[in-house]
């Protein structure tokens, strides 16, 4: 599974890095960026889903493995 923050949509609500601190981080402006090139480490899939399910701007994109 991979995650990606759509930088055009992200407005820095900060839900993803609060709910999934292993997968996202904040920059100095509060905008979110994915960690580890967006690769979700094993066992962190639930964090990834939570992040996507709580982004008001629909800026967190999940890519499930085929």
């Amino acid at each position, binding site marked *: 599974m991979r995650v990606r923050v759509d930088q055009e949509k992200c407005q820095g*609500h900060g839900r993803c890095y609060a709910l999934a601190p292993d997968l996202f981080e*904040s920059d100095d*402006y509060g905008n979110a960026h994915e960690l580890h090139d967006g690769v979700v480490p094993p066992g962190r899939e639930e964090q990834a889903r939570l992040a996507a399910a709580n982004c008001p701007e629909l800026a967190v994109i999940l890519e499930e493995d085929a």
Partner: protein
Amino acid sequence: MTDVTDESTVTDWATDFDHADPAWAADPYPIWEDLRERCPVAHSDRYGGVWLPTTHEAVSAVAYDTDTFTSRSVVVSNNRPMIPAPQGIAPPISSDPPFHHGARRLLLPAFSPKAVAALEARTRDYCRELLEAMGDRTEVDAAVEYAQHIPVRVIAHMLGFPEEDGDVFRGFVKDVLEGVDLPPEERFENFQRLDAYLQVQISDHLANPRDDLTTFLLGAEMEGQPLSPEHVRGSIVLLLIAGIDTTWSAIGASLWHLARTPADRERLVAEPELMTFAMEELLRAFAPVTMARLVKDDVEWQGCPMKQDEWVLLPFPSANRDPEAFERADEVVIDRKENRHAAFGLGIHRCVGSNLARMELRVALEEWLARHPVFELADPDAVTWSHGQVRGPRTLPLRVA
């Protein structure tokens, strides 16, 4: 609600609504529910013309459409603002692109998660002091004695304003946000008092620079130019006004809900780790802030014939209760895991202080519950709510064990 100069009582909310009406202040949710079903974008001739989208879809469409709508003023009143776009009266909330971007970026680092984390211990101390000051009384007012003080003290500290001036700040908040239906002359006088107070603080900071947001703004630059005095004052007004009654309302409304919902209160006490989700659900269900825009030019928008300089209210709390966007939208689901609520707005004007507000709300609830795990409404009829675009309890008598 003493300063409501109500001309008439609203009879049809679809064609004559007034967001300063006592019925809206007391309980706006049935009004929005009715409108979402029969008239998703309502109109009123009051305030020189106001539109009211009520569905999540329509509210977000306005919030994202910065070409059709200007943020030049975000508080609906009988006045139109004097300072034109793209800066507006209180940048960046009142600013349009492209000016907005730079004005916002100046403020964001002071409200980043890291910067806010550094304020947590101080905030926790404030909360404990307030709880301590209530002593052993079994009836306390959680709005007057607790919620209203927390954000005031934090923002006063950040701006470098006297922390004992809380009453003065709350007076300004009332003037700006609740005095919307006053005659223009009276509203103007209120703004002059605010301006005079700010001038004193700004002069003091110019003479004695220190490590706070006021000194920062006075020395800040955008594109190599210092900020105009109007920009500095406007941003300070924004931080002072927007940082206070919003969070005060969120803390109060959350305690109000927990006071009347023992199951949620008991669960939150037993499972403190639930706070992350509980807080967001309380923000969704009782979002305090309704924003506003002005129509830039005559336009037909989603079938509505909008005229230049008509207001558009953005009731994020109504969007948050839209059953098309949320399951069980009208219920508080204290452990809701999927929650894309819009309490802090949507699009480029997302609340600059949302990280700070969340920290204050979390700490205020944690400290309250640690001190008073058992509490209930002392008198449900004695609870009063602010009127206007920021809604929260202004008196909240609670019986504590």
